[in-house]
Every structure is written in structure tokens, then in C-alpha cells.
């Protein structure tokens, strides 16, 4: 097991290097740069000398890859000196820019995952066990609706609902707070801000996972070893929770992990609806500004999250399934 984890950790290195090279090159393939956007973005006349000066100060005049002092060495060198550089747009340290939003995005992703898992696993199991009964139909309708309804629309409905109901009950409308407070500082305020977007995204997320749980469960329940478990006289709940679920969980874990990694940087629209200052918004802004330095660090962060989640999934797989553990 220990060996397996070390091996998987080492395998992360080539993935990260590949991602770094790719991101670096793709960003440079976009015409223009941050200086042109800043000085000429309005469409008014800009002095070419001024743009050149700006490029020089940001290191954008350096050669791309070939050589010792290039844009690529600036980018990669940052990882060895633990200095990720500054945003080309705001001039503030990238660690500051990302750190500000990462806490919120991470917390959102975790909360949405908790919501999704808490809904998906029990519903998926019930739906499979009670296949073709009204419970199954209700669960399926619930999860299909979850896939069909866009999170941002659900978000808008939640906000409207909150406003209308609080107006009716409390006499004055209540809105979730807009600024992020650490859960350690003021857990109540933190929760009242993030629970609504977590529910909105968690619902869609749970819909996918519910369907996966249901179909995996249905498949497993038809397996011979479930029949054996019944023939042994085991109680139905032991058969479901112990014999079947452990087998059915593998594909579900994969889905949950992929969604989780996606949530870290991909919640652009939902963040907009709930007015959250998260990584998704930062992503869009940095790309719009052609802020290469920030964009590539953001992409690397998302890559890191994906690679790390995959590692966690693989370890979890091995824990669940001895056939992987011993191969």
C-alpha cells in the first residue's frame, strides 16, 4: 500500500511538467499581451514605445523558451524559489491574489460535495433497491431535473425565494452576506453566505452521482455474489450496505472526485449569481486581461487539484478493491 502511494506520487511529476509546458505555450499562442490590453484595450491610440516599455518591465520581451533567461525559466524558476511572481495586471503577488479566493472556492467545493454525497448515495441506493416503484420514479425525476436545471438558474431562484420568504416572514428581505468570512472566525455568517451556492451546485452534482449510484447498484445487485449473500441468510441491510455497496462505490467515487476537482476553478457562473469572489471569477478576469503570469499559475493550481484528487481516488480504490491493492 505504502509503495503504491509513493509510486503514484512519483507519477504526478511528469504530468505536472507536461501541463506546465502546454499551458505556457498555449497562452503565448494567443495574439496580444497584457500591455496591449491595458494601454490599447480601449481602442484609443497608444504609443508603441510605451507598450514596449511595459513589456520590458514585465519580462515579456524575453525569448520564449530557448536560453537561460527566458519567459519559461521565469515561470518554472518560480517553483524553485517559492516565488510565483506578481500579477501582470494588479502587480500584487500571485499567492495573495489566489490565496484570497482559494479558501472560498475550496470551502464551496467541499460543501457542495458534502451536499451531493449526502443526497446521492442514499437516494441512489433506495432507487436501485426499490427499482420500478414510485420511490424509484420520484428519485429519477429528482435527479433528471437536477441535470436539466442549470445551477445559475437554480441560484437565482434560491435568492429570489429567500428574498420573498424572508420578506413575508420577517417583514424585511434578507440577503446572504457578500463578503467572505473565515468559518473559524464567524461560522454562522460564513455558512449563511456559502450554504446557498453549495446547495445550488450540490444539487446538480448530486443528480449525476445519484444516477451513477443507482445504475452501479442495480448492476451489482444482479451479481452472483449478492445471490450468495442472500442464500447465506444475511439480513437485507447487510447485503446492501456491506456486500453490494462496497462493489458499487467504485464508479461513484470517480464521478464525485472529477466533479470536486472541477468545482475548484469551474464555478464561474454560480459565483457571478451569488456574487462570490472565487477562483472562477479570477480565472475569467485573468484570461480577459491576458495576465499570463496569473493565468498559468491558476491553471497549474487546477492541474494540481486534479492530479491530487486522482491520487486520492486511486488510494480509495485500492482500499475498496483488493484486486487493485494486490496487483
Amino acid at each position: 500500500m505504502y509503495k503504491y502511494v509513493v509510486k503514484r506520487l512519483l507519477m504526478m511529476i511528469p504530468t505536472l511538467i507536461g501541463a506546465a509546458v502546454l499551458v505556457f505555450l498555449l497562452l503565448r499562442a494567443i495574439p496580444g499581451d497584457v500591455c496591449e490590453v491595458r494601454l490599447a484595450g480601449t481602442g484609443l491610440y497608444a504609443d508603441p514605445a510605451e507598450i514596449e516599455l511595459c513589456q520590458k518591465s514585465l519580462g515579456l520581451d524575453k525569448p520564449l523558451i530557448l536560453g537561460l533567461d527566458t519567459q519559461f525559466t521565469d515561470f518554472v524558476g518560480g517553483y524553485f524559489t517559492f516565488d510565483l511572481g506578481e500579477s501582470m495586471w494588479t502587480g500584487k503577488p500571485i499567492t495573495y491574489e489566489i490565496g484570497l479566493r482559494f479558501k472560498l472556492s475550496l470551502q464551496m467545493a467541499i460543501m457542495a460535495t458534502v451536499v451531493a454525497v449526502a443526497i446521492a448515495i442514499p437516494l441512489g441506493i433506495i432507487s436501485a433497491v426499490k427499482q420500478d416503484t414510485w420511490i424509484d420514479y420520484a428519485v429519477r425525476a429528482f435527479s433528471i431535473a437536477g441535470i436539466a436545471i442549470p445551477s445559475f438558474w437554480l441560484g437565482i431562484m434560491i435568492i429570489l425565494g429567500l428574498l420573498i420568504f424572508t420578506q413575508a416572514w420577517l417583514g424585511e428581505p434578507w440577503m446572504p452576506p457578500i463578503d467572505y468570512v473565515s468559518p473559524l472566525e464567524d461560522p454562522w455568517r460564513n455558512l449563511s453566505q456559502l450554504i446557498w451556492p453549495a446547495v445550488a451546485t450540490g444539487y446538480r452534482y448530486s443528480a449525476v452521482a445519484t444516477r451513477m449510484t443507482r445504475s452501479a447498484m442495480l448492476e451489482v445487485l444482479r451479481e452472483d455474489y449478492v445471490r450468495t449473500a442472500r442464500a447465506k441468510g444475511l439480513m437485507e441491510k447487510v447485503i446492501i450496505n456491506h456486500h453490494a455497496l462496497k462493489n458499487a462505490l467504485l464508479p461513484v467515487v470517480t464521478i464525485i472526485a472529477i466533479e470536486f476537482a472541477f468545482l475548484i476553478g469551474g464555478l464561474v457562473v454560480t459565483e457571478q449569481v451569488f456574487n462570490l469572489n472565487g477562483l472562477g471569477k479570477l480565472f475569467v478576469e485573468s484570461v480577459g486581461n491576458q495576465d499570463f503570469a496569473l493565468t498559468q499559475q491558476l491553471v497549474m493550481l487546477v492541474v494540481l487539484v486534479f492530479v491530487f484528487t486522482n491520487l486520492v481516488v486511486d488510494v480509495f480504490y485500492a482500499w475498496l478493491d483488493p484486486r487493485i491493492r494486490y496487483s
Partner: protein
Amino acid sequence: MAKLLDIKNLRTQFRTSGGVVKAVDGISYDVEEGETVAIVGESGCGKSVSAMSVLRLIPDPPGRIVEGSIEFQGRDLLQLSAEEIRKIRGAQISMVFQEPMTSLNPVLSIGQQLTETICLHLGVSEQEANKRSRDLLGMVGISDAARRLKQYPHHLSGGMRQRVMIALALSCEPKLIIADEPTTALDVTIQAQILELMKDLSRRLGVALIIITHNLGVVARYADRVNVMYAGKIVEMGSAEQVYHNPQHPYTVGLLASVPRMDQHRGKRLVPIEGQPPDLTRLDAGCAYRARCRWAVDRCTAEIPPLEELADKQFAACWRSGEMQALRREAS
């Protein structure tokens, strides 16, 4: 000897989009304590369904036991509550399935799968269950039991897994083991080992066995009594001796002619049974075997022959079973 299991007029049906499949259509037989009964027939004749019906393991929907009674030690299993039948499964009656490769749970260790059953039915401590599991593995001929208990099914070969299944079936000292084609998926060399093992254990522990098979060699060697099934019905019933040497139903005659026998000279051709078994959704008022039967007469189309006693405890369901000896002689 006392009757352990007494099945009367059992009917199990499956509702499918193509109509109602009468998989088991009114069968009656009994099993005495410590006895080995074989159920023989080709694929799809309802032998497995009849066995699964005993423990009520037929998935519902689509399957349902529509009629009959299954008395086990005087209690009708079909009248028991779900909880009561659960307590009988694995404890009083256990099963060995056809597919050893898939019948054990791949993510649980052999030890877990054995001890959970023992703890559940015998109510002993985990430590005791562990000790019993080791003894059981020894009993079914698996050496190095302590190590094997920690292993997972994928570490074991098919034959080994079937041994584990047998250990599992024996774990709570049942009165009856139902073995559904226990050797079909195994190599020929292993088949004999497994059957010997089952027969030996059943004799030593006084467990009754129902062996479901399509292998007549198995019947001849291991069974006390034989039920031959065709299209959901028992068409012939008798001691292994009677059925093997003096078959009274054309289907049994056909089955015996289609397998090689050591007591015949080697040049003799095998005679297959022509045609296919009937569609179980479209059975009519006549004998189900008549389309494939070389001795069918008009009466076979009109009426289903009942299962009647011909000689000492030998039963057959054929209008012409009285003439069978003469017909067979004529044919050979």
C-alpha cells in the same frame, strides 16, 4: 427414514414481455434425511428455478411462486415470513452455486465471508467463528487455512473457490445442501474431486444433498434417487439404479443414448435428441416432449400424461411407458 423436504405441486412462473414463462410447472418430490437426490435435465428445463424456489431466492419481479407447498421438517417454507425464511437460509438449508468464479464477493476476504455467516447463524464470538472457518477450510481440503482466510477470491482458482463455497454451505451444519450444477464451470479433473468431497462430507455429516446437473455420469455415481425434468415438469423419477438401467420415459432414454458409456463398445455412435425444447410460454394441452419423441402417438397431442408409479417407486409421465422396454429393444 423421515422426510426432510417434501415439495408438492410447485409452480414457479416468470412474467416477461413475451408472456408468462412456466419455468416450474407443478413438480412434486421429496428428499429424505441424509439422502442424495439428483435433478437432471437440459438447460432451461427449470431445474435451477425449482432449487432456488426452495429457499425463495427467485427474484420477484419477474419471478413468482404461484402454487404449491415446500415442507421442510414439517414447516411450509412458502408460508414463512421473510425474516423466518432468512433464518433458514444458510443455517438449515444452504446452497452451492454453479459459478465459483463469481459467487464469492470480490472485495471481501474469504475469512470475512465465512465468519459473517457463522457469527450470524450460530451466534458465536468472532474468535470462535475464525477457528471454525479454519477447520472448515481444512475439511474441504484447503491447506494453509490461516493464510487462505486472509486472502481474497481472486487469489484462488476456480476449484478452490468452489471448495470455499462448499465450506460456506457447510459452515452452520445445515440439514440440506442444494448444489446447483456445482461442477459445470470446473475442469474435468477437479469435477470429480469436488463431487467426491461433497458426497463424502454429506455421508460423514449426515447432510442431505440435492444435486442439480445435466451430467448423467454424476447421477449414476453419486445419487440415490433421480428426478428427470423436462419443460418444467418431472417426467421420470426413481432410484439411480432404476433410471439408469431401466428408463421408462422416452426423454430419459434419449438422454442416456446421447452420452458415451464405458460399458458399451467404442465404435457405437452417440444418438442426439433432435430438435429444441419447447417455448415455456406456449405450452399446450399435450405432452411437451412429443415433438422430439420418436414414439409419440395421437394421444400425446391431446392430453398431458400424468406421473404414474410403474414399478417399485419408479414413476414416469408417458402414455407409452408400459411398452418402453419393448420399444427400446426394437430401436437398438
